[in-house]
Every structure is written in C-alpha cells, then in structure tokens.
C-alpha cells in the first residue's frame, strides 16, 4: 500500500520534472555569468583555476557560510555522540603486521598529497575541500589499520579554529584595506605560478586545515562510539 502511494507520487514528480527539463537544452552555455568568469577571471583574480576563483574570490562569503555549515555539523555530531554514558566495548584485535606497517607507510604520503592538493588549488584541479578530504582519508586509514592510535584532540581543535579564524581575519583585512569583506588585497603576481592570486592560496590553505581536521574529528567520534 505504502509503496503504491509512493510510486504514484514519484510518477507525478517525474512527469513534472521531465516536462520542465525538456525545455532546458543540454550541452550549451546557459548562464552569462559563467562566460564572464571565464573571460575575466584570470585577469581579475590572478588564479588560473576559474572554479577556485569563483569559490574563494567571487563567492568567498558564500564559502564562509558553507564552512560554517560543516563546522556546525561536526559540532552537532560530537554533541550527539559524546553526550550521556560511555560504555567501553570489548578489546579489539590488533591488525596484522603487514596492514599495520602499510598504513603507517602510506599515512605521510597521503598527508603530502592532500597538502599539495590544497596548496596548488589555484593552479590545478583541487583546493581546500578536496585536500581536506584527502587528509581525512589518511586519518581514516590510520584508524582502520592501527587500532589503538588516536588523533590529538587538542591539535585537531587548534587546527580547526585557526583555519576558520584565518579565513575571517583575512576577510576583515580586506574590509580595512579596501572597503569590503574578503577583498583580494595582496599582490596578484604573474598567473600560473605558485605565489600568485593574492589571498586565494592563503584562504584555501586555511580551508584545507579546517576541513581536514573537522572530517578527522568526525571519524574520531564515530570510531570512538563503535
């Protein structure tokens, strides 16, 4: 009964969607703003990766909001899981030597790759969110392979807070130097080099630290619980 009602509802939704989608052509340029960003992005922001210049420069305030959503989700998860009683489960079996050594060997390499991804966010595909996710996957590997190892909660919280604080303080510096929040006040340099694009790499490094430590603490909370 319930599934019949659901299927009827979904058919109505599907018909409505397909009628509206038939009007949207596929594979053509639809927005003027996208063309503007591609034409003027390198010149205005100094970043050759246009997606990065949209995320951090043109819509930087929006990204601050998204980072805040992630922060609140992380805090909420910690509050839900650590509140109340904490029962100790039975002792875990240690992993085999191959797994243990392999995880410890791979962990620094994953950290280096994640850092590369967010430091070069304005030059290559990548950025703070992706780099942070890669770093958190390294921590997940350690949690799976080396059971008794835990991240340093103080250092993780410090990295998280410093990342968020750097983002906001750089935005406020823009307000002081040029009159609006998140102004690109640093010199833009020559495009396609590492030290270019003003505040974009600095903000992306801050986002990388913040996202990496937040996702790592989410993993830590979930592992502690299970």
């Amino acid at each position: 009964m319930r599934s019949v009602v659901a299927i009827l509802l979904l058919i109505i939704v599907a018909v409505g969607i397909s009628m509206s989608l038939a009007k949207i052509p596929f594979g053509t340029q639809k927005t003027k703003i996208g063309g503007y960003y591609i034409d003027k992005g390198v010149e205005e922001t100094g970043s050759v990766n246009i997606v990065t210049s949209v995320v951090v420069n043109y819509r930087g305030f929006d990204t601050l909001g998204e980072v805040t959503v992630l922060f609140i989700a992380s805090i909420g998860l910690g509050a839900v899981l650590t509140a109340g009683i904490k029962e100790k489960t039975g002792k875990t079996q240690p992993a085999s030597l191959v797994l243990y050594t392999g995880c410890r060997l791979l962990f620094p390499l994953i950290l280096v790759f994640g850092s590369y991804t967010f430091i070069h966010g304005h030059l290559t595909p990548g950025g703070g969110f992706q780099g942070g996710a890669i770093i958190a996957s390294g921590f997940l590997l350690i949690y799976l392979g080396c059971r008794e190892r835990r991240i340093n909660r103080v250092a993780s919280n410090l990295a998280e807070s410093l990342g968020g604080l750097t983002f906001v303080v750089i935005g406020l510096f823009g307000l002081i130097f040029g009159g609006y929040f998140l102004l690109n006040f640093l010199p833009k340099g020559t495009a396609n080099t590492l030290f270019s694009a003003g505040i974009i790499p600095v903000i992306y490094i801050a986002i990388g630290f913040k996202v990496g430590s937040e996702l790592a603490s989410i993993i830590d909370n979930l592992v502690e619980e299970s």
Partner: protein
Amino acid sequence: MMSFLADYIYYIGAFGLILVGLYIILVKHNLIKVIIGLGILDTGVNLFLISVGYITKGTAPIFSRAEIESEQMVDPVPQALVLTAIVIGIAVLALALSLAIRLYQHYGTLNLRKIREQRW
C-alpha cells in the same frame, strides 16, 4: 527517440538517481536504508547541477596551458557549487549516522515503524 536519449541522458540519469533516492526514503523502514537513500538523492542533485553546466566537448575551466580556448570551457559556477555541496553532504550523512547510532542505543532497533510504536 534515440536522439532524445542521447541529448538528455545525463538529465535522465541524474533524475533517475533522485527518484530512486526519494523512493527509498518514502518506502523503507530501516533507518540505515533511509540514510543511504539520502546519499543517493544527494549524488543525483550533484550530477544534475554538473550536467546543467556542461558544454558539448568542453574542458575543465583551468587555464593551465596557453593554447586552451575559453570558448570550450564548461560553466564554472555549478562546479563551484557542487564542490562545496559534496563536502556538506558528507557532513550531513555523518550527522544522520550519529543520530542513528543514538536511536539504536535508545530503542534497540532501527526499524522506524517499531520506533514510532514505542514512543519512549
């Protein structure tokens, strides 16, 4: 018909994923399956946003080499939106899973129908 499929295959795939996710959320009783449905729905929305910004034979909007023409680049705005939406999606899934853990500890079951009967 075939040209229609070829033109709209990404939209069909994306909304297929969205409808599958909605169906799971509406019908299933197991909370873990509902959360999996949320994840599928999330993926469908992301795929739809990316395919709206796609240009036929387009490349990524990165001027890493000088000979790339700006005419061929796909729309960067939906890509920027999806980039953050993926990470937010992971965080929301983690929050939902933590609530599921708490519910299981409290009620001893993940069946939504039984949870609704038990109340407290």
